[in-house]
């Protein structure tokens, strides 16, 4: 008997078409109970074009080789005291944010893709989602390992998983993924697979990875390179799901449009923290947030939406607003964290004169007019020994959970945007029309947002007894992992290692 060896294409065809079950004595609908409630109509799963073309055995082999190399570099990095090669210890605070706020998102994505990898009716789509699910799990593991070296030398890394369910600003990212994971499988795919992975991912990963490269952080750069081939597959899957849904039935178009409008906004709000990282936290800057936004969203995203026009999909109607916000976003965010740094798991600082000049140059329309004066005031206070920390707790947006910091950039950027609506007799507050619309479309989902500020007032974050209790509840080491970089143990150690008095 001859055993003919299958080529990769045949193997993949067998895996994604032939291996699926026909439901002869159970109702197929019982096997895929989540497939219809979102209103998406699938007429023929066989039209699904596989974006990965990877069989499981090839996947394991390829990833194992990649990871072997990755860990060899981590080992070398660690043995060579790689942390001493970063541009400045202030840089490390950027990757503290990465580990506490971004990496747990990988785990959430792993869980979300595992769900869609079970519940989409088509076997090709399921296999692709399962592989992405494995990728996401590998990513959080490799990220934790990349950061573990820094954890030995700097404060603020060690309680990242405890903090994830508790700390006020991390709730923003957590709620984003909780929102996506509690949606149906198709909304999840549009939310994370398309809107986040395809449209916005370059604005998350490229800034962090090139920031790492510019600032001598070899561990993070290496992780970034290693993840790149996975990310390329994820982007292909994101685009395939959109095209597939739009080609399957015209009734899908308005549903998909609504999800794109929602999730690009939700994702964009999250990127506020990336804007701040790029403009304020990198000692050696790559490009400004504004430049990154223009390159990766206005140009690349613009071309994408032109392609999608033939399906009847339009660019969300808030693009003029986000275009205007790019002049403000990073400044508003860093000021918020700077003045609230008594409750963050990273350090903040006043930009140096050189950095202030860089910001003026990059933001000629807004920086000197609105933001430089804040830093001048902060400096005056710090010079008098009265480093400014804001008293009290902020008002939060019910949908994105970000403090209500966004201003009316199209009219008077000195005015905060206030939106509110009443539901079941209760008033709910929002940072924008978009967050308000998201709430109003699905109020039952967002009335039970876990808003950290309100939870603190209800006594659910360490009980009554003031902010000290809350910091214990966060496991935040006050005075060590947080507050100003100047005078911190991180700075002190850095100076000792570098032989600077």
């Amino acid at each position, binding site marked *: 008997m001859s055993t003919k060896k299958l080529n990769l294409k045949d193997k993949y065809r067998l895996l994604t078409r032939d291996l699926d079950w026909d439901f002869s004595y159970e109702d197929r609908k019982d096997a895929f*109970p*989540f497939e219809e*409630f979102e*209103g998406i109509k699938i007429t023929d799963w066989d039209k699904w074009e596989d974006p990965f073309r990877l069989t499981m055995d090839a996947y394991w082999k390829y990833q194992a080789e990649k990871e072997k190399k990755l860990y060899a570099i981590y080992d070398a990095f660690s043995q060579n005291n790689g942390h001493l090669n970063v541009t400045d210890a202030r840089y490390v605070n950027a990757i503290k944010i990465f580990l506490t706020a971004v990496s747990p998102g990988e785990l959430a994505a792993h869980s979300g893709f595992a769900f869609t990898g079970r519940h989409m009716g088509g076997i090709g789509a399921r296999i692709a989602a399962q592989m992405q699910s494995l990728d996401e799990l590998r990513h959080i593991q490799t990220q934790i390992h990349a950061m573990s070296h820094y954890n030995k030398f700097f404060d603020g890394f060690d309680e990242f998983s405890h903090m994830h369910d508790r700390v006020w600003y991390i709730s923003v990212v957590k709620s984003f993924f909780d929102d996506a994971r509690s*949606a*149906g499988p198709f*909304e999840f795919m549009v939310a994370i697979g398309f809107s986040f992975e395809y449209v916005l991912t370059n604005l998350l990963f490229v800034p962090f990875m090139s920031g790492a490269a510019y600032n001598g952080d070899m561990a993070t750069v290496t992780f970034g390179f290693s993840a790149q081939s996975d990310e390329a597959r994820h982007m292909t899957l994101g685009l395939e799901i959109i095209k597939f849904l739009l080609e399957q039935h015209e009734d899908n178009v308005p549903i998909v449009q609504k999800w794109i409008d929602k999730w690009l906004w939700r994702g964009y709000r999250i990127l506020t923290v990336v804007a701040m990282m790029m403009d304020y936290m990198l000692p050696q800057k790559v490009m400004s947030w504004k430049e990154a936004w223009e390159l990766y969203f206005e140009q690349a995203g613009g071309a994408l939406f032109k392609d999608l026009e033939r399906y009847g999909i339009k660019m969300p109607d808030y693009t003029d607003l986000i275009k205007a916000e790019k002049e403000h976003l990073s400044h*508003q965010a860093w*000021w*918020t964290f700077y*003045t*609230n740094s008594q409750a963050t798991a990273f350090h903040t600082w006043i930009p140096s004169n050189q950095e202030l000049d860089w910001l003026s140059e990059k933001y000629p329309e807004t920086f000197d*007019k*609105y*933001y*430089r*004066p*804040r830093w001048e*005031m902060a400096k*005056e*206070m710090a010079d008098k020994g009265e480093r*400014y920390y*804001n*008293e*009290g*707790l*902020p*008002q*939060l947006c019910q949908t994105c959970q970000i*403090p*209500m*910091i966004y*201003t009316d950039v199209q009219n008077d*950027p*000195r*005015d*905060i945007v*206030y939106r*509110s609506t009443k539901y*079941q007799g*209760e*008033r*709910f*507050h929002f940072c924008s029309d978009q967050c308000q619309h998201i709430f*109003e*479309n*699905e*109020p*039952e*989902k*967002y*009335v*039970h*947002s876990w*808003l950290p500020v*309100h*939870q603190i*007032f*209800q*006594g659910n974050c360490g009980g009554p007894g003031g902010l000290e209790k809350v910091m214990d509840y966060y496991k935040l080491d006050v005075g060590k992992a947080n507050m100003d970089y100047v005078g911190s143990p991180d700075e002190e150690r850095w100076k000792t290692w570098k032989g600077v008095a």
Partner: protein
Amino acid sequence: MATLALRADYHGDRKDSADKFGGAILVYINWDKHLFFYSAKAFPLDPNMPFAAVLEHVIGTHFCQHPEYKDIDWGTVEWSLNNEPFQPVMDKSLAENGFDHKCLLRFKTAEKSAFADAGV
């Protein structure tokens, strides 16, 4: 609009309803055009508290860090409650002044300085 859900009876229990704050109401307070305080601040307050006490003990202790706070001429301050013009009665309680759960109190002052021009 209805939330897209697998089950028709899906609902969320409001997490911040008035009964969950031990008798207090949530009041958000903002000093307009003073982004030194990056957002409005949230306070759980006793609705029986007179407005004058809020001014002294809540606003007075949470907005005083701004170097120009001491120069405020409170006689000319413009107030709004839930984005409607509002004239507080100092010796009346928050409830009597029309404050309810999760209301937004804003005040506008008229100092003239470079910081004020920048909205700081």
